């Protein structure tokens, strides 16, 4: 496995959102849905703020990226939903939307969250749409 990522997130770093839901992408139009990036509502004390779970995959080889998804997204789910694809985006594209990638090294040292989502529904919808438009879709073979 590749080296530990630095504590501070580099703007050029690749950020990966794994997708287990087949409706979250469209292979024909190479489209990632804004819903793939939207956070679930906050639920204190378990989830004090809105956050989108992502992985910092900069420096990882392709097979390593998929392995992280299999081991830490799919296998941790009660139904073990398979990872069908992923949306890759740069950390810079996320901060350009006034959102933050916050390292959160659990359940894996590469895990992080996209945070600072606005409370306003419209602003959140607009930011999620902008992220989805900048993301690159990768399908599982």
């Amino acid at each position, binding site marked *: 496995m590749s080296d530990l990522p630095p504590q501070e997130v580099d703007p050029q770093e690749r950020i990966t959102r794994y997708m287990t839901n087949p*409706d979250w992408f469209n292979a024909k139009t190479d489209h990632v*849905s804004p819903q793939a990036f939207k*956070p679930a509502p906050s639920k204190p004390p378990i989830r004090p703020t809105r956050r989108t*779970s992502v992985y910092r995959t900069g420096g990882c080889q392709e097979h390593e990226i998929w392995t992280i998804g299999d081991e830490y997204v799919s296998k941790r789910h009660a139904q073990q939903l398979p990872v069908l694809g992923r949306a890759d985006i740069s950390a810079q594209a996320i901060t350009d939307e006034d959102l933050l990638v916050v390292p959160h090294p659990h359940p894996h040292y590469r895990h992080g969250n996209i945070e600072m989502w606005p409370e306003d529904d419209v602003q959140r919808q*607009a930011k*999620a*749409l902008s992220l989805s438009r900048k993301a690159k879709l990768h399908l599982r073979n």
Partner: protein
Amino acid sequence: MSRTLAIRTLPLQIIEPGLSQESMKLRSVLSWAHDHANEPLSLGWKRLLYDQAMVVGKRSSEAGWDGYDAEPITREAVVRTLQLLYLLPESISPPDLIPSPEGEISMEWNDVRKRIISVTPRPDLIIWAAMTSNEHSQYGKAPLSDGWPDSLLNLLSQYFPNVRLTSAGS
């Protein structure tokens, strides 16, 4: 270039004091079911989307359906989507129905030119965002009881017309 203009039907909303929230929800479901049952059989794509909305709702009815922390999609959320689909003009191309981690079913249109319009019903609001190029984005909200906002319908007519209808009419 000609384009089909959206035809809009305003929903009828009756508010009666003294009715419980549950009664209002039940009335909302019954009202939609009544309208649905009285539609002409020719409504091909809408009928398919109604069925699809119910499938998406059922498939996403438990928390964490996305492999993360998603809220369950409730029956009320499915009905909100059905109501908006019912009011969507036939001149607009059918949307994709996408489950949202916030517990709603979103309607989305996208194409290979990365034009995206995303519409999400909320308990009292319709929320929407659109990007039709790197420079052009629009977003807004409107009361759900008013149905589809004109500005949004104009955008949909412009970028996502129902090709089958427009070519049949030209």
